[in-house]
């Protein structure tokens, strides 16, 4: 039957974000990401009635499983990882009916997949619209994409095809480029959705709203008023469970190249003409292009790395990184990175951006702190402003999403005594307590074809271009990464590093 125009009932509906009828095909359907994040997020979407009426999920794995065995596996996983517990049996039963499994071990497996998808299209009316999701280890990405291309699974009739690629996207500029080229053999750039789940977080998107929907912040958002910016992604967890991957990656590849640089670009970018994929990503790429490269001879001055040793987290003793299984006893993998970056453009010339991330820090915290300059002339005596700290705008991403502004206020006594107070906006207190999970947001966006919150080819390449020389310099150096005990804010070198500029790290 001919495709008619837009659904006339959709006009003016408040839940306008429901995607079109489609099928989502997950490679690595039995893997850790699928069971911990993807399928629970999809179930939560179903619970909120945000999935289309005609929708199916096809999990792909190597194991020989029946649909019902697969469902039973995932039921456990959803019960454990869904945002809403306990699992709602009725919703689950209806959701599970559309949850299918195809075992793919060889090229013939792709023929099975093609037949299965064709049958779903006829039975449900999904019209050949397909979202592929690569949730496998990265080594499998290229072979899967090539097989998809060869077996003609991707396109069917007038339906659309898209592919979501998980991080890490390459391990340096060269491999990232090669992966993009492989993807381009089958998919067009606008059909490729490189996921960075940080961009799905409400507060990260809120950086854009704060900056571009309010008139009062933008005028002070520049080198004239900002002294420096600190961006922190601290984890209390160690590398334990992902040690095998982590040992070959390190904090730079795991966090800095993607999450930290993404947050930095959102903080530093110029206003886009519109909140849509092309305009937003164009502006982000401009920031990355304007970043001052870290030359090999500057590595010592602009970077610090570290590796945790045994220590305590919340009172419990935890082993050091090198004591972990699957970690080489003389491993030099960094578990802590601090960087000093500059965005060489009109707005930010000379304003340092301090980035830091680490595992086994005292707590899990992600925040952006914009520290403003002091007033040009001090009106009040040094004694009166003893308790006064510089104005700071803090955007907290986790654990408790919110924004706070620190400013000086008079203590209510006779005479002038000034103290810093914080004006706190707790996200959960002003809006729905229940913010959507990042994966829910991003899966919906990909199903709807909105690439605004995904990373484009040129963005990824610019990120690697910045990170590669540092990794190379560390590799070529004979020095070991400085040690820091688990449960501290990184090696002393990190404090000296920022202290040389007359500044100090915040305690998030």
């Amino acid at each position, binding site marked *: 039957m001919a495709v*008619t125009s837009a659904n006339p009932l959709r006009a003016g509906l408040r*839940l306008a974000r429901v995607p079109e009828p489609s099928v989502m095909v997950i490679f690595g359907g039995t893997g850790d990401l699928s069971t911990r994040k993807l399928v629970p997020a999809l179930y939560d979407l*179903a619970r909120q009635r945000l999935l289309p009426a005609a929708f199916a999920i096809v999990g792909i794995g190597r194991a020989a499983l029946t649909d019902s065995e697969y469902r039973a596996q995932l039921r456990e996983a959803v019960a454990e990882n869904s945002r809403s517990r306990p699992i709602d049996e009725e919703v689950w039963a209806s959701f599970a009916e559309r949850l299918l499994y195809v075992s793919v071990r060889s090229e013939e497996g792709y023929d099975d997949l093609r037949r299965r998808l064709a049958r779903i299209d006829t039975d449900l009316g999904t019209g050949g619209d397909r979202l592929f999701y690569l949730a496998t280890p990265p080594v499998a990405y290229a072979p899967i994409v090539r097989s998809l291309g060869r077996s003609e699974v991707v396109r069917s009739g007038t339906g659309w095809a898209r592919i979501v690629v998980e991080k890490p996207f390459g391990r340096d500029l060269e491999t990232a480029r090669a992966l993009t080229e492989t993807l381009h053999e089958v998919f067009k750039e606008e059909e490729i959705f490189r996921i960075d789940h940080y961009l799905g977080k409400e507060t990260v998107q809120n950086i854009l709203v704060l900056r571009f929907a309010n008139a009062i912040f933008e005028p002070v958002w520049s080198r004239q008023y900002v002294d420096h910016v600190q961006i922190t992604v601290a984890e209390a967890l160690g590398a334990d469970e992902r040690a095998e991957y982590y040992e070959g990656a390190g904090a730079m590849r795991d966090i800095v190249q993607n999450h930290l640089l993404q947050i930095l670009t959102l903080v530093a970018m110029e206003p886009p003409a519109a909140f849509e994929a092309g305009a937003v990503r164009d502006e982000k790429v401009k920031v990355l292009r304007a970043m001052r490269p870290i030359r090999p001879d500057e590595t010592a001055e602009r970077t610090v790395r570290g590796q945790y040793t045994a220590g305590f987290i919340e009172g419990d003793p935890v082993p050091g990184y090198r004591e972990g299984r699957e970690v080489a006893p003389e491993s030099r993998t960094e578990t802590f990175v601090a960087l000093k970056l500059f965005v060489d453009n009109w707005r930010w010339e000379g304003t340092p951006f301090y980035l830091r991330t680490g595992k086994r820090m005292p707590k899990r915290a992600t925040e952006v702190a914009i520290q403003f300059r002091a007033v040009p002339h001090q009106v009040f005596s040094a004694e009166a402003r003893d308790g006064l700290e510089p104005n700071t705008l803090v955007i907290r991403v986790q654990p408790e999403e919110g924004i706070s502004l620190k400013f000086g206020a008079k203590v209510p006594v006779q005479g002038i005594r000034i103290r810093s107070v914080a004006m706190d906006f*707790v996200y959960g207190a002003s809006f729905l307590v229940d913010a959507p999970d990042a994966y829910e947001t991003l899966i919906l966006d990909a199903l709807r074809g909105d690439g605004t919150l995904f990373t484009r080819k040129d963005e990824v390449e610019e990120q690697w271009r910045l990170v590669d020389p540092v990794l190379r310099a560390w590799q070529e150096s004979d020095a070991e990464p400085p040690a820091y005990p688990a449960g501290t804010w990184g090696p002393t070198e990190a404090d000296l590093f920022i202290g040389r500029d007359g500044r100090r790290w915040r305690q998030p």
Partner: protein
Amino acid sequence: MIDTGVWGDPSPSVSALERDLARVRRGRSAHAREQVATVARAAVVNIVVVARREIHALRASRTIEELAMRHPSRAIVVLGDAHPDERASSAVSLYGRVPEVDQFDQVHFEQILVRARGPADRRLLSVVVPLLVPDLPLFLWWTETPPIGTRHFEDLVALASRLVVDSADFARPERTIPALASVCFVGAQHCALTDLNWTRLTAWRELLTQFFDVPAWRALLRSVDGMRVSFAVDADGREIQPSQALLLIGWIAARLGWRPAERMAPSEAGGLLFGMIRPDGQRVRVRVRPRFDRGLEEGDVSGVRIEAFAGGTRTEFRITRLDERRYASGTVRVDGKIVSERVVPLPATDVVELLGEELTILASDRMYEEALAVLVALA
């Protein structure tokens, strides 16, 4: 008698009341500081509730308190006499309290009761205005049929950015709602109109819409020849409130361009039966059917069936509430055979959720106005 345990202590004046509330806030802040927490007096909206019966005032007050974490507000509950005696002397008294809504004591929410006795029509505004928190929008929630034409109603609407009513409580919703709309839209101060009874339909509309996201089914929207909406009545079939069901039909009709073929005619036991005309001139049979459903509020929609006939095939789209009021099943049948079936959560909406949703939106709803226009034409 006012229960001070519920409404707080009386205050002789607005300034005394503000002083008392500020004192409570300071006390809470001091307590919070000991716990190393920061306290915010976070108010994002002024809510004025008008009630004539204490039971309505209490229910509204509880609803707003439950919403306080999500929509911290200053709530002003105006409780007037149900039957003001014109000769009686009139008096206005104030009661204020700061309920604890948050175990961490981070959000303050304040509630003020304005108790008006006797004829207070002209003086009410002078009490409410000084109590409003500046620079915040005002939601006016009227708990019964608003007295269009009275001074205090029109004074308050002129201040409000949104008027919240529930047409389920109206005796003649198809007359009262258009009259309200015309009051709201006078003057430069545009006040959006919210009908909680329309908000109850949001999930139903979403589910119906999802059927027709499938292109093959969307094509059938042009060939719909029958629609049936069931709504809940009490066991005796006495409380018959078809307004919610009619709003749903009005919405579909407005979206698909149907026009009334005739006026509504009563059918079995409080139901309605009438015809509408599709844009291609064909007739659509419309039935509104009252049904007893345990656990549903009277007037709530309990099922929808849309039938289409095209190419010699009859396709039926059906959403039915399942037991326990928490789910609905959506099915598509082609010539009687089920081709698609799913169960989705559809919890019965209580007033807390309805109002909570409305508080996130400030604009008026064009779809509602269009649906209403169809009802006016049918009445």
